[in-house]
């Protein structure tokens, strides 16, 4: 039986000699040289078989067909023997997948689509489960009675709490894994668990090698054996020696037997994958970077904690969810009330909400308020009792003038204060006044309406002014006139001397002065004339002169008593009176 290489080598040897590859067996022996004859004699029919086999190996197409027949069986058989096929194919498959994704990502996406959903769900489920466990673990670490006891232990022994927890709960933890080149003791790769503290791994790697050599030399052990374990207190170092590399794991706690098996598997895998790099190692650690994921498989941790139902985490989560739900309910309640208050304020005439915000003291509404409008607090009063449970509703107001017709009209009524007989209406910014009033109100209307905001014009088409005061004054003047003209003052016979006139003056003077004031108030000027009279004795001339002297005497007397001279206009004789020694008054108004 020949191997493929041997046959190929033979073929290449023969290729240097001129062989007629198209030569059939039927060609005559005469044309063959001596060597050919000898070969034919020695091998006979086998030569043809071997020749055909060689041709099959040299012909790529035929060889491929032959390999294609057996390749599946060969792969299956090798996969059953060890993992080398996986290692050998993994790089190729990774490259092929990357290449496929680069060329057409949809193809791989479509292929993965049916499994992506379940995978993602499972992954999320797993992550949530782990998160719940971690959360529960943290709660137990911080809240449980056991954790308090551990804290007490830590305080009592002077250790850190994490150390005590580790001692109490840890079965074992692989803190570091070294991949060491066996011959040189140089570090090829190093992985470390997140919690572990490590020093210079290159130095430690070399020193561990030196210590192994030291032990081997010191105790004359056979050269094919090697150090398996170093142990000091709770820390041990497990070694797995391969032909070219050593995997060393630094373990805290009690490592199980499975860990040694795992180190062996990992070392074997690394030898299979990196055998060439290990054999030709010259100090360059670059090719061994990709060993990191494989070594990380060894970073195992096992805790003593039993798997328990995470009631603490569930309780905390339920509390959190409950609190969140309560907060949400309160929030929506509060928002609802605020919106209701806002709507109430906005719908109230004369109020304008310019801003509202949530402050530490509650919701604060900033409102512009017309003096005619309702108090905003009374508007939201019905909501205050409900709101007090969730938040406070507060209002700050600033004055403003509303331009709505009802407010303009209200403002007009407040300013003008119309009498009962007058009605005010507003239409298109025009104030219509209906009814009648006295003059003063009319004057007030004329003066005030231009000052009322929102009124552009005044309609007085249905408004009348009733001047009752003038009639009253007339009446008053008439009364005073009658009273004054009814007054008489009598003289002695033949005399024009005014004597004992105090009572007359006391009566006459106030009447005349009141007349003067009243007449002036209506723009008139009174004139009081005094005329004298006599009895029938004596001559007409004498009587005439006496009558005039009597009127003059009274005039002078009244002037002395304080009557303004302008009121006493003239003195004329009394023609209507007979046989009466007196004077009388006559009132004229101008």
């Amino acid at each position: 039986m020949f191997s493929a290489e041997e046959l190929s080598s033979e073929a290449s040897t023969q290729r240097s000699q001129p062989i007629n590859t198209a030569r059939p067996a039927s060609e005559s022996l005469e044309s063959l040289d001596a060597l050919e004859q000898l070969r034919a004699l020695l091998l006979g029919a086998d030569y043809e078989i071997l020749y055909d086999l060689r041709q099959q190996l040299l012909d790529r197409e035929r060889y491929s067909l032959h390999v294609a027949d057996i390749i599946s069986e060969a792969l299956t058989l090798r996969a059953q023997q060890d993992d080398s096929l996986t290692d050998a194919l993994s790089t190729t498959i990774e490259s092929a997948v990357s290449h496929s994704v680069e060329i057409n990502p949809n193809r791989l996406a479509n292929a993965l689509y049916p499994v992506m959903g379940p995978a993602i769900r499972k992954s999320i489920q797993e992550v949530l489960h782990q998160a719940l466990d971690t959360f529960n673990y943290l709660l137990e670490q911080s809240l449980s009675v056991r954790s308090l006891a551990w804290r007490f232990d830590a305080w009592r022994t002077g250790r850190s709490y994490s150390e005590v927890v580790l001692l109490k709960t840890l079965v074992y933890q692989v803190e570091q894994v070294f991949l060491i080149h066996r011959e040189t003791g140089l570090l090829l790769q190093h992985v470390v668990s997140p919690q572990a503290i490590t020093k210079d791994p290159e130095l430690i790697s070399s020193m561990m090698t030196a210590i192994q050599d030291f032990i081997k030399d010191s105790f004359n052990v056979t050269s094919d054996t090697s150090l398996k374990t170093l142990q000091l207190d709770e820390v041990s170092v497990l070694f797995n020696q391969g032909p070219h590399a050593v995997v060393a794991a630094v373990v805290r706690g009690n490592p199980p037997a499975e860990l040694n098996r795992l180190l062996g598997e990992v070392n074997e895998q690394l030898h299979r994958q990196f055998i060439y790099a290990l054999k030709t190692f010259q100090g360059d650690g670059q090719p061994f970077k990709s060993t990191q994921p494989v070594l990380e498989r060894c970073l195992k941790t096992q805790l003593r904690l039993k798997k328990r139902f995470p009631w603490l985490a569930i309780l905390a989560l339920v509390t959190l969810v409950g609190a969140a739900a309560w907060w949400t309910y309160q929030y929506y309640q509060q928002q609802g009330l605020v919106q209701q208050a806002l709507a109430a304020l906005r719908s109230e005439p004369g109020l304008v909400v310019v801003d509202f915000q949530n402050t530490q003291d509650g919701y604060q509404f900033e409102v512009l308020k017309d003096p005619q409008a309702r108090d905003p607090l009374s508007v939201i009063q019905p909501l205050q009792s409900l709101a007090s449970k969730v938040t406070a509703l507060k209002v700050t107001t600033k004055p403003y003038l509303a331009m709505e017709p009802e407010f303009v009209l209200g403002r007009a009524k407040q300013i003008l204060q119309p009498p009962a007989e007058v009605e005010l209406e507003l239409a298109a910014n025009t104030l219509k006044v209906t009814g009648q009033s006295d003059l003063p109100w009319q004057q007030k209307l004329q003066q005030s309406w231009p000052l009322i905001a929102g009124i552009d014009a005044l309609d007085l088409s249905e408004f009348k002014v009733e001047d009752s005061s003038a009639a009253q004054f007339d009446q008053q003047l008439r009364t005073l006139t009658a009273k004054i003209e009814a007054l008489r003052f009598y003289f002695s016979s033949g005399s024009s001397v005014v004597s004992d006139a105090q009572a007359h003056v006391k009566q006459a003077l106030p009447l005349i002065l009141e007349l003067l004031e009243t007449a002036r108030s209506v723009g008139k000027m009174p004139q009081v004339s005094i005329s004298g009279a006599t009895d029938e004795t004596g001559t007409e001339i004498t009587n005439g002169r006496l009558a005039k002297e009597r009127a003059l005497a009274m005039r002078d007397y009244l002037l002395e008593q304080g009557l303004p001279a302008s009121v006493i206009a003239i003195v004329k004789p009394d023609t209507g009176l007979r046989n009466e020694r007196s004077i009388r008054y006559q009132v004229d108004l101008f």
Partner: protein
Amino acid sequence: MVLQKKICLLGAFSVGKTSLIQRYVNQLFSEKYLTTVGVKIDKKQVTVGNTALSLMVWDLAGEDDFTQIRSAHLRGLSGYIVVIDGTRQNSFTVALALHERVRTELGQVPAVFALNKSDLKDQWLISHEQIRTLAQLGYPVIETSAKLGLGVEEVFMGLARQLVPEKVN
């Protein structure tokens, strides 16, 4: 790229190997390792051209009548420094013996000879003839003084330059 290389410091007892590297390397382990395990490993990082070298310096306990350097410690070394105490004739003999031993066990390996204690040169007992003999071996011979810090960097660099492959450098 950082190349790791294992190098050893060889020499007779008390020639100054430890002192030689004391101030020039990253130390993690205490000197007691030398007496207990027989070796203390330190790290020295140097750059030759474009190549960074991480030298793992195995400081082996000095060889004398009672102590033998362990062969296992020499395995896999890329180069070595043989330290000679110029004031002690015996250290020269031990150095040549050690050099010969390494050559026998590992073949031709880069090396540097360090003639230490150059600050006491007036007390040197090693002759010029012996120094010439060393130089004829074909390795760099560098005078050093651990006390004054002279020549130490040159020793490490002299070895490092031999460790970097031509094509890399």
